[in-house]
Each structure stands twice: as structure tokens, then as C-alpha cells.
């Protein structure tokens, strides 16, 4: 069976690089599932959860904003954050979310607001992935 070559890269590291069977991505226009032989596509990624299926196993990753390029057999994900579910520290994420939410109440300039919003989106994505794991 055909496989997809999935690469997830952040500015800090290459988080994921493997052949997989299916990927579910949080696009800006809603979730989308990518199978091999998908039509070439370029899209934006919003913060959320990536589900990777390889064989019978599912992997979950929390990701931040970014871009995705899909060519028939390859999926390249560029994002500012990507963490595997098992590496997420729920307490830290919760703490980050609280901090970001309280910062939003303060008076901030545009630059700061953007940064805090990004931090908030990151922590929410992490929490979402982690809590789903718990179930």
C-alpha cells in the first residue's frame, strides 16, 4: 500500500519524519484527512491536533499555526510548535494557558497581543491533545 512521507518541522527541530498511512490536520477551514495520492495542496494550519496513523497505531501531536504542503506522496508541515502527546506536560500547559489568559486582560500593544494569543493557542492545543489521550 502506498504511504505518505510525513515531515513535521519547527524552527527548533525536526519533530517527526516517517512514512505513515494517514494524517489528519487542523486546517484553517476545518479538519482534513490526508491519504496517499492526495491532490497537491497548499494550506494554512491552525493550532490544534494532528493525528497520524501508521499501521494500527495512532500518534497524536499538538501543533501551532503554520503551513502545510501536500504533494501526492509527501506531507510537509511547517509550524511554530509541535509536541508529541506523550511529551506534553499537562500542568505546564494549564499554567501557560492561565498566564496567557490573564495577560490578555492587561493592556498590551499589537505585537504582544499576537504573541500572547499564539501562546494561548499553543497551550490550548496541548491541553486538547493531552485530555483526549486521558480518555
Amino acid at each position, binding site marked *: 500500500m502506498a504511504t505518505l512521507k510525513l515531515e513535521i518541522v519547527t*524552527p*527548533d527541530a525536526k519533530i517527526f519524519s516517517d512514512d505513515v498511512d494517514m494524517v489528519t490536520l487542523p486546517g484553517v477551514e476545518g479538519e482534513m484527512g490526508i491519504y496517499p495520492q492526495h491532490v497537491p*495542496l497548499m494550506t494554512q494550519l491552525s493550532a490544534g491536533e494532528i493525528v497520524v496513523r501508521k499501521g494500527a497505531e495512532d500518534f497524536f501531536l499538538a501543533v501551532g499555526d503554520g503551513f502545510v*504542503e501536500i504533494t501526492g506522496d509527501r506531507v*510537509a508541515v511547517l509550524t511554530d510548535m509541535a509536541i508529541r502527546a506523550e511529551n506534553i506536560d499537562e500542568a505546564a500547559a494549564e499554567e501557560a494557558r492561565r498566564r496567557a489568559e490573564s495577560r490578555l486582560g492587561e493592556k498590551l500593544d499589537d505585537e504582544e497581543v499576537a504573541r500572547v494569543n499564539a501562546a494561548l493557542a499553543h497551550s490550548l492545543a496541548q491541553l486538547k491533545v493531552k485530555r483526549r489521550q486521558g480518555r
Partner: protein
Amino acid sequence: MPSTRDIRRRIKSVKNTAQITRAMQMVASSKMRKAQQLALAGRPYAALMNNMLAHVAEHAGDFTHPLMAKRDVRKRAVLLVSTDKGLCGALNSNLMREAAKFSKDTTVFVCAGRKGSQFVARTRRTLAAEFTYKDSPQFGEARAVSRFIQEMFVKGEVDHVDILFTNFVNTLTQKPEALPLLPIGELKAVSAGVDSRALGATLEKSPLEYLFEPGADKVLGELLPHYLNFQVYQVLLEAKASEHSSRMVAMKNATDNAKQLIKDLTLDYNKLRQANITKELLEITTAQMALGN
């Protein structure tokens, strides 16, 4: 002939210098390790981003973006990424030699790092803005620089932007390089630390037609500024890695030289001391022989 005291004083001062350069070497080498790690970690992202952008540029069709506008080059800007401090070998002078190649009249400089702006002021070139960046460059700092450049370009103040920085090859080699940054389009080698040959190879594989979601204009509108921000960020990282590597090597050489000097001086000192003792002994024996007679 210097006296033993002079030599002793000299040795002491060289020892002090060696101690300082040694300390600086230690500091630089620990910073270097961190900076190199950051620079290398950013490269896969930069490479993938380049790749993606090249595909987009090829398939965007009729769509154009203000940042891709090709105009006749009447005025150009150069983003000069230098260091804040000296004592890092020939790094800055190599860089400035490249910078001096740009025409004085039609080029405005945007500087990151103090050495660059000093050079611009000294040679009476035009300085548009000066930015600072920390030892571990933040994405926010890169964004500020990149936003300023984008504004200049979109407003039509400049028609072409190059970025001049020191590319990090390895600890012993850093190469000053000028890369075209704007207009986006000639993507052949527009990548900090990315092998352009590898880029060329992947370009050929690009498929025929792309879908864009939500739309080519929206995706490009987001991707292009982000690409520039990241490109600047990566360049800052490369420059920092180069700076610390170069400083580490320069300080190591200085320490080694000082050690050699101390060794030579100690030898001189001992020789002189021994000569003095011999002379004194000789005098004593002469005097004794004179008295004995």
C-alpha cells in the same frame, strides 16, 4: 639590556592578558555551542520553507504579491548583519569588505549589530535604521527588522533588498555572503545555510498543479511575510553562530600566543639571572684572589 625586574614585570602583564583571553575563550565557546545548535536546528525548517515557497511561486499563476514585484533597480537596500562587539578575528573586516562593494550613492543600509552601523557612519554611507539583537536572537527581533524592510520595499523606497551576513560553515570557517531577499522570486539560492544544489534537486520534483486552501492570495499573503521573518531570523542565528565561533578561535589564538610569549620571556629571564649570578661569583672570586695575594 633589560633588567631582570623589567622582564619579571613583562611576564606578569602577559600572564594577566592570557588570563583574560582565556576567560573570553571559555565564555565564547559555551555561547558558541548554544548558537551553533540553534543555527543548525533552524536549517531544516528554512530548507522546507524555501522549498514550499519555490513551489508556490511557480504555481501561484497570475497572482502577484507586493513583495514579489520586480522593478528596475534604482535604489537598493542592504541589511548588514554584523556583531556588536569586536575581538572576533577578521569576521567584521571580511564582512565590511563585502559591504564596501555596494555603491555608495544608490544603497541604503539597514544594520543589525553595532559594528555595521559604525562602518556605515565611518564611510559616510546612508544608514536607514539600526537594530540590535541579543546573544540568543529572538524571533520578535527578527520580525521587527523584517517588517521594517518589507515596509521600505512595499512603499517603493527601495527596489531591491540584499542581506549581507556571515554564513556559518563550521567552527573554523565563516563566510560573508550576500543573498537577495526582496523581491521574492529568484529563489535559486535564497537560503541561509541551505545547500542550493539540494534545493535545485527538489525543485524539479514539483508537481504540475496546486490547490490552495483557502485561496492562493490568502496563503501567499500569510506565507510570504512569514518566510521573510523567518529568513531574517535564521540569518541572525547564523551570524551569531559565526560570531561566537570566530571569537572563540581568535581568543584561543591569543591565549596560545601569550603562553608562547611567557615561555620565551621566562627563558630570557632565567638566562639573565644566571648570567648575573655568574658575574657576581666571578667578582667575588676575583676580589678574594686579589686579597689573598
